[in-house]
């Protein structure tokens, strides 16, 4: 229960100035008024209290229409005080909030922690009353009591309905195209320079007899870019196992190290060479950004890998890795979804997968129909985004003349209230 102290500094200062100004206003205006002081203003009407929607409970919204003397009539209303009690007749001495004049609602809410200050238990009945306050703290008029009302958490957030439909449509699209692909429907996919370079780069490393360096960057196992990078590593590892080239995978995050070890070992097993798997191909260095970069730079200069593959989440160290890679004369292929680092890879590397291309890489490398199907769904979603954006702009700009007024609120479909 937000008590008086909880009112923000701004509101306090505001009410105090209004109080002072009104006090002086009343005195100056009506010097002849009798000592009785201010007449009580009209009470607030149509008071309703209802559980706040779309929330995790512990919150009740009180609404009312302002008193007739607020801004008109006797114009002596300063603000409203929301009082709460546990029974209809019960003593109303629990002030939950004071709002300045002109407001029509107040949200009485608390956090979900049991012991928090002003905690509102769910599913317990409360009764509310709103007093219209005046300059004189003794003079106020109370509305009738409303209640019982209790707060509870909703199980579905209606504000996310546009997102809900979007997710459903996207999933349906993916399932549709994957099943089409499963039935052998041929799917065209435009060539991606960065991906074709991976195959030639592995061939190059094999001829030159120099290792391939695969770097995950600073992502953790719970980054989607890292999951995409795992899928790329699994296909690179398959080829490395077949061509018996040397693979080096220095890791920043221990969970990634464990997963990568598993991927490379399985690749060697699938290629029928379980004993060629070197235990220390995938190893951990440290979880400090620049110590990791120093170590990888050292590996590049000393091992002179033929190919450096950077796939995953990269931060400021992207250019350090790429420039040292240039010094050690390696072919470099990079892919990240960290927008700020893409320019450095584009400038310094031979091939770069820009943002979304990183996520499409696994479909390209494996050429598996199912994954190509999901790429098709991604393209349809992009087409939908394009069409909706154009429609929206049409609506906003020409709604007046073309009479497409119903389109005007089109934009709100995208506004998400969570």
């Amino acid at each position, binding site marked *: 229960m937000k008590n008086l102290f909880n009112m923000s500094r701004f509101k306090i200062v505001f009410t105090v100035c209004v109080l002072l100004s009104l006090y002086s206003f009343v005195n100056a205006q009506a010097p002849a008024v009798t000592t009785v002081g201010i007449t009580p203003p009209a009470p607030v009407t149509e008071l309703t209290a209802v559980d706040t929607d779309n929330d995790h409970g512990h919150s009740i919204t009180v609404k009312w229409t302002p008193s007739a003397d607020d801004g008109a009539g006797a114009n002596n209303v300063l603000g409203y005080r929301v009082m709460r009690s546990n029974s209809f007749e019960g003593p109303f001495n629990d002030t939950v909030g004071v709002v300045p004049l002109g407001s029509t609602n107040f949200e009485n809410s608390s956090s979900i922690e049991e012991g928090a200050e002003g905690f509102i238990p769910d599913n317990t009945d409360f009764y509310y009353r709103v007093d219209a306050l005046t300059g004189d703290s003794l003079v106020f008029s109370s509305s009738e009591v409303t209640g019982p009302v209790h707060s509870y958490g909703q199980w579905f957030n209606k504000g*996310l309905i*546009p*997102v809900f439909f*979007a*997710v459903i449509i996207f999933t349906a699209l993916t399932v549709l195209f994957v099943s089409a692909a499963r039935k052998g429907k041929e*799917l*065209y*996919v*435009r060539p*991606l320079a960065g991906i074709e370079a991976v195959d030639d780069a592995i061939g190059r490393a094999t001829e030159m007899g120099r290792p391939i360096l695969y770097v995950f960057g600073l992502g953790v*196992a*719970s*980054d*989607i870019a890292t*999951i995409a990078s795992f899928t790329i590593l699994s296909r690179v590892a398959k080829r490395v196992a077949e061509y018996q080239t040397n693979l080096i995978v220095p890791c920043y995050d221990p*969970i990634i190290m*464990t997963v990568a*070890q*598993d991927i490379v070992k399985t690749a060697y097993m699938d290629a029928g060479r379980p004993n060629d798997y070197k235990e220390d191909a995938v190893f951990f*260095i*440290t*979880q*400090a950004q*620049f*110590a990791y970069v*120093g*170590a990888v*730079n*050292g590996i590049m200069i*000393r091992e002179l890998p033929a190919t450096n593959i950077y796939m995953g989440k990269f931060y400021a160290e992207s250019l350090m890795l790429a420039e040292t890679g240039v010094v050690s004369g390696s072919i470099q292929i990079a892919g990240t979804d960290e927008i*700020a680092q*893409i*320019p*450095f890879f584009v*400038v310094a590397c031979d091939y770069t997968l*820009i*943002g*979304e291309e990183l996520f*499409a890489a696994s479909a390209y490398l494996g050429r598996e129909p199912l994954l*190509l199907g999901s*790429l*098709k769904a991604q*393209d349809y*979603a*992009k*087409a939908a*985004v*394009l069409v*909706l*954006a*154009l429609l*929206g*702009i049409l*609506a*906003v*700009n020409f709604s007046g003349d073309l009479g497409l007024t119903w389109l005007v609120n089109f934009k709100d479909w*995208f*506004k*998400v209230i*969570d």
Partner: protein
Amino acid sequence: METVGIWCGAILTLAIFSFLYKDNPVYKACEAIFIGVSAGYYAIVYFFDSIYKKFWLGAVTADQPEEWLFGGAILGVLFLTRLFPKISWVARWPLAFIVGATAGLYMVNYFVTNAMNQVASTITDVIARGDAGDINWIQSFGTLVILVGVITGLMYFFFSKEHKGAFGGGAKVGIWFLMVTFGASFGYTVMSRMSLLIGRMDFLLGDWLGLIN
């Protein structure tokens, strides 16, 4: 104690800069120190941060312990089975948890922040009017260029459609926009990298040699 710290920092700084010239034993030593010390440091910090504060205080010795946390500990122990090759396949379960939970959590999150909100902010009034209703040409041209940039940029990212004809033209304009933005952000960051170098010069010339006025 203070001067030892500064001398130590200065020597390490010069050693790292020497890497620019050539890989040398002093740099290799600094690199090794940095790896060892930082690995040890973060092992301790993460140990006290999660095991001690969250698990030990939160679940074991807390007055109303959160039993849920033991679930995490069990999955963690499963992870250690990696050390024994025979039963190391069990380590896939905690991995399944991490990958599955992440995918589910971020799927809706990024759909909202990246796709929905960005589309909402693209839908704007192209013709920007000044407060007196007169058309603000520069502003309108700007919004028009943004609109063209977003649409052609998206066209470039199409995978399953041949980049030929009008569509190919759109994608070509899209890559132009991308190149301009890459050049611009590269140019913009030159300053922040230079200020890092200035920071080190302050340390070397100021704190160490005391030559600053």
